[in-house]
Every structure is written in C-alpha cells, then in structure tokens.
C-alpha cells in the first residue's frame, strides 16, 4: 500500500510532460543570428531540423549544445539542420554565450520570447525535433549527460524516413 502511494506520488514528477505541438506543424519563425546567418524555419522544409532553446544563465545548456554540434557535424551532409535559439532579454549576454560555446550551427536570438511562446518552451534546455515534412516529432527536456545518445536516437530515424 505504501509502495503504491509512493509510486503515485513520485511517478508524475519523473514523467515527461506532454508537448502540445507534437505531431503538428512546427510554427514558422525568422530570427536574427548571433552566430551564423539569419534563419527562417520554412526555408528548411525537406530537412530534418533540430531546434534547441537555451539561455545564457542556464548552466545545463552547454552540454546539450556540444552534443548537438557533434551530431550536426556528422549528419549535416545527410540533411540535418540544427539551430540554437537564445531566449535572453540581454543581447550582449546572449552574444557572449553563443560565441563561447563555439558550435557550427546558427545561434539565434529571441529577445522578446515570441518564438519561445509559440513553441511552448517550459524549461531550458529544451530540444525539438522536426521531420522533413515540417512536423514536430519529438521533444526532449534536460537530458543531462546522455544528450548525444538521446539526440542520436531521435535524429537517426528521422533522417532515414
């Protein structure tokens, strides 16, 4: 009985919250780049797109960005597009962070958080996977040290479709 109660109390804390955009068309955006060129999402229809949201004060955002950069280097030629979206108010802090992580994909800024609202970002880091038809297929929230393995397991099937 005690174990059952404990399970009921603890389980919701560990379950990944549902994501309303799952299976739906990803909202389009066009954002200024801090590093790289400006990006309009709709230009990448036909590619597998990974959008990762970060903040300059988010200590757990660096590892997922590094993991995504490694995967981007591997799968770019197979049609993988990655973008990072910073949701800081402070453009200077965003720029410093974007330059310090040294990734090969564009790092964009969303200072008024319009895109973050449209994409229902509820935690940082949060990574959204979009298939070649522009539909949201998966989302991961803070995945810690397993980022590369988790991301690969999401990206590979989408590239194979």
């Amino acid at each position: 009985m005690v174990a059952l109660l404990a399970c009921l109390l603890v389980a919701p804390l560990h379950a990944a919250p549902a994501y309303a955009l799952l299976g739906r068309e990803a909202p389009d955006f066009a954002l200024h780049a801090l590093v790289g060129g400006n990006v309009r999402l709709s230009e990448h229809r036909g590619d597998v797109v990974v959008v990762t949201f970060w903040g300059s004060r988010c200590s757990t955002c660096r590892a997922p960005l590094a993991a995504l950069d490694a995967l981007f280097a591997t799968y770019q030629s197979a049609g993988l597009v990655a973008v990072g979206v910073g949701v800081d108010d402070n453009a200077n802090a965003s720029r410093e962070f974007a330059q310090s992580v040294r990734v090969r994909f564009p790092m964009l800024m969303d200072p008024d958080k319009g895109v973050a609202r449209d994409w229902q970002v509820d935690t940082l880091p949060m990574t959204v996977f979009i298939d070649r038809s522009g539909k949201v297929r998966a989302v991961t929230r803070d995945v810690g040290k397993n980022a590369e393995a988790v991301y690969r397991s999401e990206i590979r099937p989408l590239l194979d479709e």
Partner: protein
Amino acid sequence: MPNIDGTRVAHTSWVRRWSVAFALSGAALLATPAAWSEPPAEGVAPPAVTAPAPAPAPQPTASAPAAATDAPAAPSDTRGLDSEVQDLKKDVVDLNKDLFVLEEELLFPANTQVAVFLSMDVGSFFALDTVQLKVDNKEVANYLYTPREAEALLKGGVQRLYLGNLKLGQHELVAFFSGKGPGNGENDRDYTRGASVKFEKTVGAKYLELKITDRQRKAQPEFEIKDWD
C-alpha cells in the same frame, strides 16, 4: 514574427493551404484504402516525447491466395487510378490559382491597391538584414532576410514586400534598411539608412520599388524608391 504582411495575407495563405489540403486528402482517401484506418495513438516515452512515425505501407504476403489471384489485374487498375489522381491534383492546383487571383482582386481592388517591391543590384557595399516599411508613419512591414533570400535578391529576384490598400490622395512611404557594410569582412559595420517618397494615389493600382544599388564612385550603397507610374 518579423514578417508582418498583415492578416489578409496570412488568411490568403491559410485558405490556399486548406483548399489544397482538403482536395489532396480526398485524393489520398480515394487512392489508398489503407488511409481509412485510424492513425496510431500518440505515445509518451520519457525522456523524449515522441510523435508516432508515419505508418509503413502494408506489405504483400506470399501466403494470401486472394492477393495472388488479383495480381494480374492490379497494374492497369493502379495506372488508371494514378492518372485520375494526377488529374485531380492538377485541377486542385488550377482551382487554387484561380481562387488566389480572385481573392487578391477582392481584397486589394485596383482603385485602392498599393504594392511595394524590393530589388537589389550588385550589393558589394551592403549586406541586407532587415527592411522596415512605414506608410503615413504607420509600420506596415518589417522583414528579416536570411542569407538565401538576400542571395536570391542579388541574383535579380524582386520581392513583393507589401500589398495593401490606400485611399486616393497624398501619402508618404518611408523605408529603413539595416544591414552590414561598407567594409571588408570583419570590418563590416552595422549600417542603417532610410529613404522616403511622397506619392499621389490615383485611380488604378500603385506600384513602388525600393532599389538598393552600389554607388561605385563613392563606394557606398544607394537606396532609392522608384514610382512605376
């Protein structure tokens, strides 16, 4: 979103998408009985929340005698059905085009129509980033350019930046161009310039063109607004 073309344009796009989607889904239902089956339920598997992958096409089984007996007739049936689907798709595209033209004529009649276009020539001294457009001191468009779009403009593309309605009489158009240059590589500096024009809206559509050119003599970009009348 930086692309602020107004709700009418968004509505146009919405109507077009739905009309195409509706017709294509009808065609898909006709073509594939498998599409009648219900889609799989969404699954949630921590830590990744994943949407269901599209259902694979049903594989023919060697042990099905019914399938084996129907097999010789299948290719011609499929070809006929395929050509019907193609015809239907073509009709949908034609209908969509007609609807688009009709809708534009309805929403932007020639008597009040004003369209603003943007073009670039050469562009060695200026890398375009954004254009903000104001008509009678009211912002009507604010567009962010990606490298791909800027490249298309440099190759001779012309973009319709704004389509709207204005009453007859005097109006003022102001455009602010932001970007990089003039400079070389790391010396590129942020650059913002404005251009304005006063124009008379008469009976008949009004077309204006924002033109970015290089002024070689001064090694500076030049921004002008041309009236196509």
